[in-house]
C-alpha cells in the first residue's frame, strides 16, 4: 500500500500531462453543425459517466475483499472510492444539466439514464453518510461494505426498471436524444484519449484520497494511544 502511494505522484503528473493534451485536442476538433460549441461538454460528460459506474464496480470489489479478509487496506480504498465515485457522478450530472439547458431547454428530465445516474449519486452519498455516522471505524466499515454490496445488486435492477418504465409507457418528450448522436469521425479519437485520461485521473484521486484517509486514521490512533498512556 505505502509503495503504491509513493508511486502515485508520478501517476499524478502523467494524468496532468494527458489531460492537458486531451483538452488541446478537444478545442481543436471541428464543431458539430447541429450542437455548436456545446458539444465540447461531451468530452467531460461521457468519460465521467463511465468512470462513475466503473468506480462503483471497484467499490464493490473492495467491499467484498474487506468483508472477507478484514483487511484495513481494502476498507480505506473502499472509503476513498466512494468519494471519487461521488465526484464523477456529480460531474456527470452537472455537465449533463448544463448541456441539457441548451439542448432540451430544461435542466432536468425524467429519463432512464438520468434517473439511474441520480440514483447512483444518492447511493454514493448514502455510503459516505453512513460511514461518517459511526464513531467506530470497524462498525462503519462493515456497515458500508454491506450497503455497497446491496447497491451493486440493486443498480442493474434499477437501471433496467427505469428503462422499461419509460419505454413501456410514455416515451420521453425528447426522443432518444439521451443516447445521443452516434459519435464518428474526428470526434472520436479525443474521446478515447479523454477516457484513458479519466481512468488515470480516477486512479490518482483514489490513491490520493486513500492516503489522506490513512493518515487521518493514523493520527486518530496516535491521539488515542497518547491519551490512554496519559
Amino acid at each position, binding site marked *: 500500500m505505502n509503495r503504491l502511494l509513493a508511486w502515485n505522484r508520478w501517476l499524478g503528473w502523467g494524468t496532468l500531462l494527458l489531460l492537458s493534451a486531451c483538452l488541446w485536442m478537444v478545442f481543436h476538433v471541428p464543431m458539430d453543425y447541429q450542437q455548436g460549441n456545446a458539444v465540447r461538454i461531451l468530452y467531460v460528460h461521457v468519460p465521467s459517466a463511465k468512470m462513475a459506474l466503473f468506480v462503483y464496480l471497484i467499490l464493490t470489489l473492495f467491499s467484498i475483499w474487506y*468483508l472477507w479478509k478484514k483487511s484495513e487496506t481494502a476498507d480505506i480504498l473502499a472509503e476513498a472510492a466512494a468519494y471519487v465515485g461521488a465526484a464523477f457522478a456529480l460531474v456527470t450530472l452537472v455537465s449533463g444539466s448544463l448541456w441539457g439547458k441548451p439542448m432540451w431547454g430544461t435542466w432536468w428530465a425524467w429519463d432512464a439514464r438520468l434517473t439511474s445516474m441520480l*440514483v447512483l449519486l*444518492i*447511493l454514493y*452519498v*448514502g455510503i459516505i*453518510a*453512513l460511514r461518517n*455516522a*459511526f464513531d467506530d471505524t470497524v*462498525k462503519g466499515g*462493515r*456497515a458500508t461494505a*454491506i*450497503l455497497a*454490496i*446491496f*447497491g451493486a*445488486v*440493486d443498480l442493474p*435492477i*434499477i437501471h*433496467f*426498471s*427505469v428503462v*422499461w*418504465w419509460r419505454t*413501456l*409507457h410514455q416515451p420521453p418528450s425528447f426522443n432518444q436524444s439521451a443516447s445521443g448522436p452516434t459519435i464518428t469521425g474526428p470526434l472520436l479519437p479525443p474521446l478515447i484519449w479523454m477516457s484513458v485520461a479519466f481512468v488515470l485521473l480516477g486512479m490518482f484521486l483514489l490513491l490520493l484520497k486513500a492516503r489522506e484517509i490513512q493518515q487521518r486514521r493514523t493520527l486518530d490512533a496516535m491521539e488515542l494511544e497518547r491519551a490512554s498512556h496519559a
Partner: protein
Amino acid sequence: MLKAIYRLAWKDVIADFRHRSTFSSMLFFAIAVLLVFQAAFEPDPQEAQRLVPGLLWSTVLFTTILGLGRVFQAEEENGALEGLLLAPLPRGAIFFGKWLGNLVLSLLVMTMLVPLTLVLFNVTIWGHVPMLLLLLFLGTMGLTALGVLLAAMTQTARSRETLLALLLLPLVAPLLIAGVQSMNSVIASGSLTGPWLNLLLIFDVVYLALAPWGFGWLMEE
C-alpha cells in the same frame, strides 16, 4: 427455531399494541397524507383513479420507513439486542423474527389504507381491492426485508432517521416503479400478470435471500 422466530415477532407486535403505538402513528400519517393530496389536488374521479397507485405506494413506502425507525428501539432499552444475540440462534432467525413483526404491522396499516383511499378519493374500483392488496403485500415483503436490514445498520448511527430514509429510498426505487406500474395495469386491464409483477417477485426473492446474510455480517463483532 420457528418458535423463536414467532416469539420474537410476537414480542414486537404485542409491544405495539400495548403502548409503543407505531401502528397508530403509521395510520395517522397515512390518513394525513391522503387528506393533503385530496386538498392539494381536488381530483375529479378520473384523475383520482390515475393517482391511486402512486398514492398507495408512496404512502406505503413512507409509513414503512416511519415504522422502521422503531424496529430496534425496543431492543436498545435494556441492552436487549445484546441479549438476543446471546441466544443460540443463527442470526438469520433473529432477522426473520424482526422482519415478521414489522411485516405484520405494515400489513395491518395497508389493509386499512386501501379502502380508505378509495372512499376518500371516490374511486369505485372495489372489485380490484383484493388484487391491489395482494400487490401491496408482495411489495411490502421485500420492502420490509430491506428496511429491517437498514434499520439494524443505522441503529447506532448518528441522525439515523434521515439516514435510514436516505439509504432506503434509492434502493427500493425499482420496487416502487414495479409496484406502481403493476397496479396501473390491474386498474386498467384487471389482469395481475405481466413483467412488472415479475420484477416485484424478483425483488422480493433477492432481498429476502440477501438480507439475513447481511444481517449476520452486521451483527458480528
